[in-house]
């Protein structure tokens, strides 16, 4: 159903430009990976706190508030580099199950992070609750699936 759109995207100049260059794809990919590391740190530090690990002597809200601008920066760089990577091979992505797993879990992870997880991380208390634990565990599971599925696109 979406195939014609992906075929149309394949013609887009930005993707062609990347395909015709030897260097551009790996260079963009490297920036994508660096942003992944930063995103990983900013997500994991909050999730660890929700699990009662890491900076457990601080309130959840403090850790989340501090991590948030860096997380948003990292997500922005990831999308800004991920889009051109996708545009360089839309048809390959269309036929890659890993790509679709990544896109669906990414949508779920973003939605979850900026709704439920944001609300739960507003808590000022230092004590941990079972609800926080579950929210942190689900967040880690979602983001790790996104990262692993993303790596897997390259194997197909």
């Amino acid at each position, binding site marked *: 159903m979406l195939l014609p759109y992906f075929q149309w995207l394949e013609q887009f100049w930005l993707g062609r430009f990347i395909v015709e260059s030897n260097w551009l794809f790996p260079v963009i990919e490297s920036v994508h990976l660096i942003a992944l590391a930063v995103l990983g740190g900013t997500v994991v530090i909050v999730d660890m706190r929700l699990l009662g*690990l890491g900076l457990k002597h601080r309130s959840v809200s403090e850790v989340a508030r501090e991590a948030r601008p860096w997380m948003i920066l990292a997500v922005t760089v990831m999308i800004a580099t991920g889009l051109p990577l996708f545009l360089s091979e839309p048809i390959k992505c269309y036929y890659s199950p890993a790509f679709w797993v990544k896109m669906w879990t990414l949508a779920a992870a973003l939605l979850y992070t900026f709704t439920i997880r944001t609300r739960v991380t507003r808590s000022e208390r230092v004590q941990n609750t079972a609800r926080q634990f579950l929210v942190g565990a689900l967040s880690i599971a979602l983001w*790790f699936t996104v990262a692993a599925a993303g*790596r897997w696109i390259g194997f197909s």
Partner: protein
Amino acid sequence: MSLLAFCEWLAATSGSIALHESLYMYPLIESVHVLALCIFVGLATILDLRLLNKVLRNVPVSQVADRLLPWTITGFVVMVMTGSLLFYAIPIRTYQSVWFRGKVIMLILAGINVWIFHSGIYQRVSGWDMAGRTPAAARRAALASLLLWFGIIVAGRFIAYNWFDCDIQPQSKFVNWFAGCIVPPAQ
């Protein structure tokens, strides 16, 4: 035994061949390598940003370091284990990769940087734990750490590309020297 001979021996072991030819093990190990990267470089970045006064400024530096370091070290151990397996799967080509060699050099520099930081300015952390501005030596170490680890990520990713492989000749003199290529003399 030279390192190259060792890599040739390694490449002939059944474990290396099995890993190299496996359909799922190699990608699986590489995925774990990437996930460990998120934890290791991610948390190292948080500490570096703290040392640069860019995050968690109300949390003492020593608290950030003490609480995160066990996880950073765990992530690093997983990185080394999975990284060794990835090397074990493709020993000769990796050993003769300019990117791999660049990565090893940066890893050594990153190690020296950690050692200088921990044996130097961090010994006196109680004096600047909550300072509005961390000492210049701490900021220098943080900046060096960020640049080195980001460089290591890039070099690691580029090992996959074969532009400078020894079996693709001609290469520049520098590449052949740095990669340790054994080039037969021109006919």
